[in-house]
């Protein structure tokens, strides 16, 4: 193992500190070091969007960041969305469930973390706006239609 650097990062509100190699990706840091395996790793070159997390509130690809770059910053993963237990889903997750916005679920964490800030910024999105917002996330099961439906439903429930 080559030299290690200290990284102190707040993940889902909890501060963690580890000594890591500089080449460790943030995605692997979350999954392997912090055991937060909700963040999925698909292509690892920035195409599929499965590893999307929030860095200081903005959606980013965690496979295109080094863990050391998150030093002193705040990260939110999909684990931050739900409460304890299977019935304590975030409203966005509930809308995905209600609209069949997922089948295998591999891409879902990335979609959720992409859409969360999108809905904050755009509480009443049109379908084309939603499709543009999720253009950086690949889903091989749903054909996207049910995901778009889920976002429209989540937005409508939020406004109600």
């Amino acid at each position, binding site marked *: 193992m*080559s*030299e290690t*650097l200290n990284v102190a990062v707040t993940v889902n509100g909890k501060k963690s500190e580890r000594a890591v*190699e*500089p*080449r*460790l*990706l943030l995605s*692997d840091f979350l999954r392997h070091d912090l055991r937060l395996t909700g963040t999925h790793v698909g292509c*690892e*070159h*920035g195409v599929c*969007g499965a590893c*999307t997390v929030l*860095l200081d509130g*903005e*959606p*980013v*690809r965690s*496979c*295109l*960041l*080094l863990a*050391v*770059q998150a030093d002193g910053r705040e990260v939110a993963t999909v684990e931050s969305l739900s409460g304890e237990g299977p019935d304590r889903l975030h409203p966005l997750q509930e809308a995905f469930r209600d609209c069949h916005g997922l089948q295998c679920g591999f891409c879902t964490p990335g979609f959720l973390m*992409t859409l969360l800030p*999108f809905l904050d910024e755009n509480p009443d999105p049109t379908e084309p706006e939603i*499709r*543009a*917002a999720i*253009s*950086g996330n690949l889903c091989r099961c749903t054909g996207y239609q049910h995901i778009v439906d889920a976002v429209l439903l989540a937005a409508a429930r939020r406004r109600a």
Partner: protein
Amino acid sequence: MKPAPFAYEAPETLPAALVSLARYGDEAKVLAGGQSLIPVLNFRLAQPARLIDLNRIDGLSYVRRGADGGLSIGAMTRQRELERSPLVRQVAPLLAEAVPWIAHPQIRNRGTVGGSLAHADPAAELPALAVALDARFRLVKEGGERWVAARDFYTGLFATLLEPDELMVEIAIPPAAPSTGFSFLEVARRHGDYAQVGLAASVTLDADGRCRAARLVYLSVGDGPVETPVAAALLIGQALNGESIAACAAAVNGEIDPLGDIHATPEFKRHLAQVLARRALALAGERAGSPM
């Protein structure tokens, strides 16, 4: 671990970064937004001995009005900030129109203006936009700096005038001439994919509504941004109409030499280049105030 091992440093000041570059420039890679560099490291297509991370340096991220009334943009400004900037929309509407075409929101949240310009991917939007806007780049190194025009900066495939010990720190975009219209169009298989062909066009009209200046700068049809000055010159002195635009668009093919890929043959790209020229010139002309 995907990338091969490297030494890592994140200097907190520009002078400290320049010292490191002077010392390690040949073996080091500069990490800006990382949206092109990290994939290359993950695939181990590049195995630099050292990364010099610019993300801890304050003062390289800004969008301001330049002394000439144009724009001054810090090299570490995220592409997302350009997209959201009212000043960009006001002073350089071409940039505001084109930035949403750069990859996806998650990428633009990290990707930087200077990183993309210095990386010189022939399919990237920003290099072609910089050429179309007559941008100039401020390049600094330990004990020196120089300004280079965007149209001189790109020298080949992923090749630029940037020396290993130099850093791009600022982009200056002059104000547009009066009665100038811009447009940006791109064809990609899906929004956010690499462009099959993209085009930034500008048209400046004289008092009689005739074309005084015109420029077409393509992306994804050559080694870097590709200008077609011979085709553009056909518009000079002409009223912008279907006929003059069609003649210009037809002439574009004499100045581009696109390579094919699995999604597009060279012939298809040539076809797209003509179609985009017609659409982009009509749109730019309309915005410049031409009765179309």
